[in-house]
């Protein structure tokens, strides 16, 4: 049985269809990256899974429990890392973990707190107020707080959004440890590198539904081919090259100061200029082609 099964889920906010006929299945034991641009419906999906949003229609089953009727049981067995830091900053590291151990009905609170402190690598800061921690420590604590009850399913909502690269790497290391330990993970992100590095499978989400799914390699092979040619040139020449490539039936996207011709291995002679930089196709190519949005 899958850890998460969503079928034809719809959630509207007034005129906005935030989630629009979403089908999503997350098998137990994998890390699925929910990749999408801002406004794709990722956070609403996360809220639906914790019953902090109630679907207008469709069926939701998490860890075998129907939502929203049995969301409480589902929440007892899942951990959540929110997009925004909502730790109690005046309270000690240890007490933050202790409080959530109680909320999750953990029986041996001392052992759970110790284990979470190990995960966050904050044993020596356990008596300090959260306010005194560095940004990276706080983020690690936030992750460890979601693991205090050893959940079967772990939801991470944009776990590294707004973090500097060093802290992002620290959080990634933590998530990788969990993933290798077999915890089922659903992680929403709009960082391509995050999805590539951490996810066994990626579901690309846009306009409230999943529009493509597979391993990063599968998605690249299916949607972007083998090679991408980047052409760095003044705007006028870029426009010429783009027109020629599109006429030849190739997908072209903007890539900062360049244009990227995707599936360049299929190009006939002369379509890809000699001065183009050839590189392997990437998940970013797939994403931009599918969603029409540039990634961060």
């Amino acid at each position, binding site marked *: 049985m899958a850890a998460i099964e969503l079928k034809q889920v719809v959630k509207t906010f007034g005129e906005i269809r935030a989630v629009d006929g979403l089908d999503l299945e997350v098998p137990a034991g994998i890390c699925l990256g929910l990749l999408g641009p801002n406004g794709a419906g990722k956070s609403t999906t996360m809220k639906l899974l914790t019953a902090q949003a109630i679907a207008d229609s469709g069926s939701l089953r998490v*860890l075998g429990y129907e939502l929203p009727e049995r969301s409480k049981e589902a*929440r007892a067995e899942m951990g959540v890392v929110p997009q925004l830091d909502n730790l*109690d900053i005046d309270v000690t590291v240890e007490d933050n973990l202790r409080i959530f151990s109680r909320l999750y009905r953990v029986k041996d609170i001392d052992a759970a707190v110790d284990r979470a402190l190990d995960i966050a690598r904050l044993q020596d800061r356990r008596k300090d107020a959260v306010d005194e921690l560095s940004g990276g420590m706080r983020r690690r604590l936030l992750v460890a707080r979601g693991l205090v009850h050893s959940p079967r399913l772990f939801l991470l909502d944009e776990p590294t959004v707004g973090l500097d690269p060093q802290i992002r790497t620290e959080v990634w290391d933590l998530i990788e440890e969990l993933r290798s330990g077999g915890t089922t993970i659903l992680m929403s992100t709009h960082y391509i590198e995050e999805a590539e590095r951490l996810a066994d499978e990626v579901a690309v989400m846009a306009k409230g539904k999943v529009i493509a799914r597979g391993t990063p390699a599968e998605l690249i092979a299916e949607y972007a081919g083998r090679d991408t040619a980047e052409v760095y040139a003044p705007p006028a020449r870029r426009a010429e090259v783009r027109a020629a490539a599109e006429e030849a039936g190739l997908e072209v996207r903007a890539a900062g100061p360049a244009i990227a011709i995707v599936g360049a291995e299929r190009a006939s002679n002369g379509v890809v200029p000699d001065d183009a930089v050839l590189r392997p196709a990437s998940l970013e190519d797939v994403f931009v082609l599918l969603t029409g949005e540039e990634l961060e």
Partner: protein
Amino acid sequence: MSGASTPVPGGARRGRMRRLEPAAIAGVMSREVANFRTFWKSTAFSSTVEPIVYLLAFGLGLGATVVADVDGLEYVQFVGTGMVATAVIFSSVFPAMFGTFVKHRFQNTYDAILAAPVDTEELVTAEMLWIGCRAAVFGCFPLIVTFFFGLQPAWGMLLVPFFCLITSLGFAGFGIAVAGTVAKIDQFNYVTTLVVTPLFLVAGTFFPISGLPEWAQVAAQFNPLHQLVELVRAACFGFEWNDLLRVGFLLVFSFVTWRIAIVQLRKRLID
């Protein structure tokens, strides 16, 4: 047989959890206690010193210059016993209004709590109970201070924390309901001016209700704070049968605000 005892990897493993679980309520309250430990000194300071200031200003000031006694009761003692209600409303309605709003809108605390197996009903109940317990303690401070102004101890006073508790639960529920209703924190000003201040002034704390026009006396009977003032004075100077009705009124007040607070906060917290 072996298949029945081996849990399916992604399948359900536990029976239905109940509503209003004590463990969930205790968990939320433990968060409040942990936070309160970081700021209890300032709160205890204001809760202790404020009634002394009021007693000195009204009790001694007005008592020495304008009013000597009310219905045979020395004015300082009249105000001192009435101040219990003031302490209760200030230490319940404001923490409920501002605390709930801040935790919801600015700190995102409730998002974290509701991601755990805790429902809005349990969250509101825990918040009300914690505020109620705190206000029940703070409500006793003016009474203790009034001992130093000649108030004689009485057995009935042992019930004062209970009266404070049932009243502050109601005001905590009211405050949470308001926080769950307003769009912006500035809108608390309307509630304070139009609801809290009139309730505070027409409770019989500083002057007897019997001196007001008849319509105001009738309206005052629906003021929970007035009922608390009457109950505290009864606890100090002797109960009457209708004090049971006052207790009943306060229990209904608390129950109604509890249910409204749950509905209003749920609208805010669950999309």
